[in-house]
């Protein structure tokens, strides 16, 4: 333990020991900072066996210096200045460059001031074992401390400090080894100032301080050939530290709101949601109704601080300036690796920004003129749609990674979603947040700041733990997942789970106007493990030869009454969200999985749709009724299929299923004939180890049985019948669902690819024509090809949406994918709120209840459906992301045993990579090439040159990829990384 002493200084010393400087705060206030400097004489020089410095045991530099330089045969050590580290870091990091270096504190601080990422690299260098670097705290050693003189720039002061320290070292070396009599004095090593600053060298020579430029120094080294390549040319003319200028404006200012609204109204400006490009962070687009293609925004400046999801106003450039979208993958993290988070004081046009502009320029040259698209710039934001984003802390942006450090640091938070920019964040707990998922909210984005500024909300937990990932997923897709509150639970029946359908009587309110269907042979068919059974079916032969078929839906509206807390909550949640290992309910579990769930062998309230169908599946009539049912059996798809196919079973229930099946086949055929699409989406199933552990062990594709289609057909039929009924009764406010036909331009690219690559024609004139031409897209050698085309076609389409029948014109009611003129959702009220509304409307339509006033109001229905549409979309994305996460986990588990290689199809080609789709796992990935490759955009082909012949890869080609999950070192974000194995190995590229 060091002895505690009180050090005192006369007042006259204050000039030397106090550092005084003026600082401008972010608000523009100028403050005077006076820092006490404690100068001491015991700061070690770091030279072994130094007679003058005390703590010689830690010293790392040999007393004799290094002898491997031809200019300095007597041994030497070098004292580099700041610019050496700023411009020649690659050289410094090289394994073969390891002279004895004295790193001055002045230099370290200046590097830190100029560039944090470089400072972090420098810190790593100091720690590296193969480097001989001694950090000398020259500012705290009384002999080497310098004070800034009047009229001296900070840069000059630092240079002077570095020269002084070098001179001191030379003197110190001679003093440390006084000549011993009778012994031959070994030659004294020299401390050499290493600098590329000519003025600095001249001054040093005047003071007789040995100095040398980097190039000359490296040239004199023994392994110079290798190292000279690493020398950066930029080093020669480095300008001194710039004076702190006024903050530069990086983005154009927004127009005032009134101008924006007037402009949009007049048609000069266009309004729309801003969509960022996930492959290229310097590009985004805004779909505008006035154009068939979305408006392209190229470059940071033209995107003007818009964030994914914002509603923006854009101005269109004249047509001569229109551009085509880029075909290159540009990664923000790679391009802006050296950007500095705490650069808030002066946002400079630094190297990174220049590199970015260069990139844009290069890209622009490569853009094809053929595919031009309206191009414009954001002139204002109509509405920000900022929320909290799940992020990781970028560990290279940290000033100090010391875990006890409580200092406020400015760091970058990288959002999980690739669509968002990095967020600048000020926090005192940065070191503890590294490696965690955190929630960050954007506060503002000033015109003077390259990145938006935000604040830390809370930590979600360690990266890659399931809890953190799951919560982050829910937050990322804005899924409300809090447990239900007391007010909501109070709306449930008081009996709780002992609630039963009361015995039949005319006085009981449950039995009022309800049909008793308890005797019917009703069964439900669902996926295995399904707890919220909301539909059940029956079919029987009628004496007249026709068939009676019935769909019975859980009577949720009996329990969820309009305008109470439970109803509000359900409307806000909109839908139940299904994640791989979790379900976030829309309704409290008591209803969803018990009272409303049409479980077998218990009596349940239902809402029934009963048809009379001819044996050819023509509808003779349909009626809707509230009912009481008792399901006889809850089948899984597989069990139902087995039962139907078993020739030994001939009971009435089995006959019923067969009857339903035969009808379903006919209904489907009729639907297909009318032009319904058979689309595909990559659906996979995660195999769990056991229900408890929820550790995925493998991924397999979902399998579709005949009974899946059976249930589907009857649900569609019920939905269509109900839609017709409620539209008739409430033409102004009926809750319907539609699927708009996609604009033809959406298909252009796919058509072009198909034409050029396979010579196939895709007819998109109507849904029927599309269905027919999709059927013809066959590759005999590749059965999966058809599915791939279907998946790609699905992506060209719009998504279906709920709407209020009075809000849109009658001719846009149609459902494109199902080729039905009218459609709604009626069959899953437990998990979809729209269905609850439809139930209420249908119940009023059959005069069972009166319609709640809110459902008479068009604006109220519209508002509710807007929320439901949004939630529905988010739930789908959350579900997909959850699958993706588990696929990642499964891959990781599989990857531990052996490398995972899978067949994949090329779906996109980029200038520097391939987009591939692995159908077996249902995931999409990027294969990036580091080396330049030939890219033929018109033929969707890339050519990889190699010694033994070029290899050509095109869209739709089948390739083999190796799939690995790797962690990004900075963000800790688990990334699926794909490398090509066949036809060529891309790992070397």
């Amino acid at each position: 333990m060091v002895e505690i002493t009180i050090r005192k200084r006369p007042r006259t010393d204050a000039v030397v020991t106090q550092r005084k400087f003026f600082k401008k705060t972010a608000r523009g206030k100028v403050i005077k900072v006076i820092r006490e400097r404690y100068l001491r004489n015991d700061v070690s020089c770091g030279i072994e066996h130094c007679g003058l410095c005390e703590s010689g045991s830690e010293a790392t530099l040999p007393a004799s210096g290094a002898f491997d330089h031809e200019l300095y045969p007597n041994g030497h050590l070098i004292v580099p200045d700041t610019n050496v580290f700023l411009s020649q870091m690659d050289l410094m990091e090289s394994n073969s460059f390891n002279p004895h270096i004295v790193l001055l504190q002045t230099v370290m601080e200046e590097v830190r001031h100029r560039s944090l990422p470089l400072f972090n690299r420098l810190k790593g260098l100091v720690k590296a074992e193969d480097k001989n670097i001694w950090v000398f705290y020259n500012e705290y050693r009384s002999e080497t401390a310098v004070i800034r003189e009047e009229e001296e720039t900070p840069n000059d002061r630092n240079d002077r400090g570095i020269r002084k320290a070098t001179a001191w070292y030379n003197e110190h070396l001679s003093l440390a080894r006084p000549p011993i009599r009778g012994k031959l004095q070994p030659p004294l090593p020299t401390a050499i100032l290493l600098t590329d600053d000519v003025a600095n060298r001249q001054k040093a020579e005047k003071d007789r301080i040995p100095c040398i430029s980097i190039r000359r120094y490296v040239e004199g080294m023994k392994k110079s050939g290798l190292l000279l390549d690493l020398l950066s040319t930029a080093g020669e003319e480095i300008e001194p530290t710039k004076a702190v200028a006024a903050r530069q404006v990086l983005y154009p200012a927004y127009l005032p709101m009134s101008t924006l609204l007037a402009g949009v109204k007049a048609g000069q400006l266009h309004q729309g949601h801003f969509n960022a490009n996930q492959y290229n962070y310097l590009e985004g687009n805004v779909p505008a109704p006035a154009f068939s293609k979305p408006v392209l925004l190229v470059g940071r400046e033209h995107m003007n601080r818009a964030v994914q999801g914002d509603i923006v106003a854009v101005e269109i450039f004249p047509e001569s300036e229109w551009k085509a979208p880029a075909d290159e993958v540009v990664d923000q993290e790679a391009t802006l690796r050296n950007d500095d988070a705490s650069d808030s004081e002066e946002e400079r046009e630094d190297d990174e920004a220049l590199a970015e502009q260069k990139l844009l320029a290069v890209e622009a040259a490569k853009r094809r003129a053929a595919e031009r698209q309206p191009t414009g710039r954001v002139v204002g934001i109509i509405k920000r749609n900022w929320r909290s984003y799940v992020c990781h802390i970028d560990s290279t942006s940290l000033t100090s990674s010391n875990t006890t450090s409580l200092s406020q640091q400015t760091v970058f938070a990288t959002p999980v979603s690739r669509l968002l920019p990095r967020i600048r964040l000020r926090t005192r707990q940065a070191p503890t947040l590294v490696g965690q998922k955190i929630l960050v909210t954007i506060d503002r984005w000033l015109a003077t700041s390259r990145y938006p500024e935000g604040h830390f909300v809370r930590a979600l937990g360690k990266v890659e733990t399931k809890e953190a990932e799951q919560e982050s997923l829910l937050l990322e897709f804005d899924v409300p997942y809090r447990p239900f509150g007391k007010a909501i639970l109070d709306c449930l029946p008081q009996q709780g789970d002992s609630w039963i359908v009361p015995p039949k009587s005319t006085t009981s309110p449950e039995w009022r106007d309800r049909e008793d269907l308890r005797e019917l042979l009703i069964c439900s068919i669902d996926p295995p493990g399904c707890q919220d059974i909301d539909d059940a079916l029956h079919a029987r032969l009628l004496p007249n030869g026709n068939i009676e078929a019935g769909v019975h839906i859980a009577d949720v509206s009996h329990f969820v009454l309009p305008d109470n807390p439970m109803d509000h909550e359900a409307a806000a949640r909109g839908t139940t969200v299904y994640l791989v290992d979790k379900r976030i309910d829309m309704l409290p579990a008591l209803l969803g999985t018990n009272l409303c769930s049409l479980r077998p062998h218990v009596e349940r309230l239902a809402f029934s749709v009963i048809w009379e169908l001819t044996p050819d599946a023509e509808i003779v009539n349909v009626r809707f009724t509230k009912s009481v049912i008792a399901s006889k059996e809850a089948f899984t798809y597989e069990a139902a299929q087995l039962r139907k196919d078993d020739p030994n079973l001939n009971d009435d229930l089995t006959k019923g299923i067969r009857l339903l099946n035969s009808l379903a086949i006919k209904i489907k055929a009729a639907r297909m004939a009318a032009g319904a699409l058979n689309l595909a989406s990559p659906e996979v199933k995660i195999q769990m180890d056991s229900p408890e552990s929820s550790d995925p062990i493998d991924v397999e594709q979902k399998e579709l049985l005949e009974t899946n289609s059976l249930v589907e057909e009857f649900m569609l039929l019920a939905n269509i019948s109900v839609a017709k009924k409620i539209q008739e009764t409430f033409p102004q406010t009926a809750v319907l669902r539609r699927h708009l036909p996609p604009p033809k331009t959406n298909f252009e690219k796919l058509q072009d690819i198909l034409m050029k690559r396979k010579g196939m024609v895709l007819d998109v004139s109507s849904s029927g024509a599309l269905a027919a031409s999709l059927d013809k897209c066959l590759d005999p050698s590749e059965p999966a090809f058809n599915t791939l085309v279907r998946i790609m076609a699905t992506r060209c389409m719009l998504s279906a949406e709920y709407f209020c029948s009075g809000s849109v014109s009658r001719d846009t009611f149609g459902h494109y994918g199902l080729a039905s003129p009218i459609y709604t959702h009626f069959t899953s009220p437990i998990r979809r709120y729209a269905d609850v509304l439809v139930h209420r409307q249908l119940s009023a339509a059959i005069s069972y209840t009166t319609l709640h006033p809110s459902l008479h109001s068009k604006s109220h229905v519209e508002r509710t459906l807007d929320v439901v549409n949004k939630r529905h979309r988010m739930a789908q994305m959350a579900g997909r992301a959850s699958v993706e996460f588990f696929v990642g986990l499964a891959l990781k588990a599989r990857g531990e045993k052996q490398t995972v290689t899978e067949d994949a199809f090329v779906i996109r080609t980029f200038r520097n990579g391939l987009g591939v789709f692995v159908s077996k796992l249902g995931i999409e990935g990027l294969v990036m090439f580091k080396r330049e490759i030939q890219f033929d955009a018109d033929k969707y082909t890339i050519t990889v040159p190699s010694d033994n012949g070029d290899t050509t890869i095109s869209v739709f080609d089948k390739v083999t990829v190796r799939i690995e999950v790797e962690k990004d070192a900075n963000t800790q974000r688990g990334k699926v990384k794909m490398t090509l194995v066949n036809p060529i190995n891309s790992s070397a590229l």
Partner: protein
Amino acid sequence: MHDRALINVEVNIVPFSTGERRKRSRGDKRILELGSTIKSTFEPVVQTSLYPRSEIDIFVHVLQQDGGLLQASINASTLALISAGIPLHDFVCAVTGGVHSTAPMLDLTTLEENDIPHVTVAVMPKTKKVTLVTMETRLHVDRFGDIFKLACEAGQVIHKEMKRAVSERTQKLVTAMEMGPRVVPSADVGDRDAMIDDLNDY
């Protein structure tokens, strides 16, 4: 307070004492807290029962600060009380201890206080009692023991320095009054001042 004196502490921080000029109102909660901390530090040390029905005012004026505000205020108050001849049971020596990573440090500057966890300790060096421990940051419990011990040791060092200053000043006073022998002044200071008495032992 019929049986003892009341201690009243008033703290005034001038706006120009810090780098950034900031006007603090009289009712500033930080300043009130500082005052009450000083008050409670001295309450067990000052022999208040000797002065029933009276008030002892301590005025702390901060003219310049760069960290260690509380410790400096306490140390200054100790010396001021001694200089005023108020009987104390013991000196009060305060010092701030902090920890950077695992290395303990003493007497932090503002820059350091903002960055690292720290604790202020006031000790009574002779009686080896601790009259104040205050901490506004989080500190790992494993580190606390080390720092606390170090701060107590530092209190002893400060005590020596204070005692030297007190005796020097007293000697000067005695010389100025031209009373008693010049070399050993203590006898004349008398037994009135318990504190100065103490000094004679050294």
